[in-house]
């Protein structure tokens, strides 16, 4: 059995760890609230832009644009959203594992794909495995503004337009609730399945100056906002995931402290009993 002092020091260290995990849990809870609000304030923009894109893309005149048409796939782009910091449970590993497996199944050589990654964890994961990372964002704030990611989003969309790759997939954790985050795979480009907002009757618009020119500005903006939306969603999921991970860490620390306190008390009692027996037997020997 461990000595009294050993047990005591383990209890203190576990208590300290518990304080840290508890603090992290509360910080994540606060950040989750903010991230949820950000994701919510993005919704009206997304709905509106989707409505307009949908009504143009499904319009009778059928405006065409390279971003709407599927072409032969020579190279595939993958946008992967991870976090900068760990300690978020399975948040990063589930995304990375899935992407890694998918890429290995689909491609035989590194020339066939390129990766755009957000977050340090993902960046080092792909670098370590020698996979081609063409763009990356690290050190993104917990409440990213659109301006922060505008550059990389428009470069990514630009690469598709230039033909650097012929399709673009997006991988991230979708925030469902504080205890559930779903891994999401989404085909971003070409825009083949545009939701039209529940199929309600759409106004037919006049286009000024022309449909093609509207698509020219509208579609890149739409694709960029899809990336931004995914990022906000992923941020909320990250905080939720970290909060859950830290809560279970705190609970585990509580259990551990309980067990240790029990064995500490047992050891203490045992040593007292032993001392008493020694005293009594010593006194008995003198009689």
């Amino acid at each position: 059995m461990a000595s009294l002092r050993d047990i005591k020091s383990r209890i203190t260290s576990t208590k300290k760890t518990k304080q840290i995990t508890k603090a992290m849990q509360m910080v994540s809870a606060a950040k989750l609230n903010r991230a949820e609000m950000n994701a919510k304030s993005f919704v009206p923009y997304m709905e509106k832009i989707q409505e307009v894109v949908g009504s143009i893309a499904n319009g009778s005149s059928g405006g065409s644009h390279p971003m709407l048409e599927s072409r032969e796939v020579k190279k595939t782009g993958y946008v992967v959203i991870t976090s900068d910091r760990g300690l978020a449970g399975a948040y990063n590993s589930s995304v990375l594992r899935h992407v890694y497996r998918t890429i290995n199944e689909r491609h035989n050589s590194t020339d066939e794909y390129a990766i755009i990654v957000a977050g340090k964890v993902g960046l080092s994961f792909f670098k370590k495995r020698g996979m081609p990372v063409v763009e990356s964002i690290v050190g993104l704030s917990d409440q990213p503004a659109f301006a922060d990611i505008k550059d990389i989003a428009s470069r990514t969309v630009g690469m598709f337009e230039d033909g650097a790759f012929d399709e673009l997939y997006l991988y991230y954790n979708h925030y469902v609730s504080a205890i559930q985050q779903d891994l999401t795979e989404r085909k971003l480009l070409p825009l083949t399945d545009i939701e039209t907002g529940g199929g309600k009757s759409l106004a037919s618009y006049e286009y000024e100056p022309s449909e093609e020119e509207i698509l020219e500005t509208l579609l890149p903006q739409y694709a960029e906002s899809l990336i931004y939306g995914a990022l906000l969603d992923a941020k909320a999921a990250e905080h939720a995931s970290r909060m859950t991970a830290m809560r279970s860490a705190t609970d585990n620390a509580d259990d551990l402290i309980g067990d240790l306190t029990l064995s500490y008390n047992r050891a203490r009692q045992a040593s007292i009993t032993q001392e008493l027996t020694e005293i009594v037997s010593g006194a008995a020997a003198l009689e």
Partner: protein
Amino acid sequence: MNTLKVSVVTPDGPVYEGEAELVSVKAKSGELGILPGHIPLVAPLTINAVRFKNGADTHLLAVSGGFVEVRPKQVTILAESAELPSDIDVERARAAKERAEQRLDQAKQDNVDFKRAELALKRAINRLDLAGK
């Protein structure tokens, strides 16, 4: 007097909601004045100020990178960024203007950087113009 419902939304959230008798925007094809009862229309906007007029009140907004969606009773502006004059960070805009000007001096005409710097300069000037009013 009839009014239009006006809303300006950006990826960072709604910026402005209100009523207006006249909405004046600068589209790529030229200035556009929108009154209630306009036919449905979509037009891309230039980096410029948008004016909302309601009675004696006129509201101004610095808008960059977006388009306007018009319906008979409603005008929606979808922009990458939009700011009320009171929200404009003058210091930042001025710094951005200088940076953009420097870059314009160095970069070559047909360069991608040149175009980006040009856009940044436009945005900065637009913001400074509005904040000064």
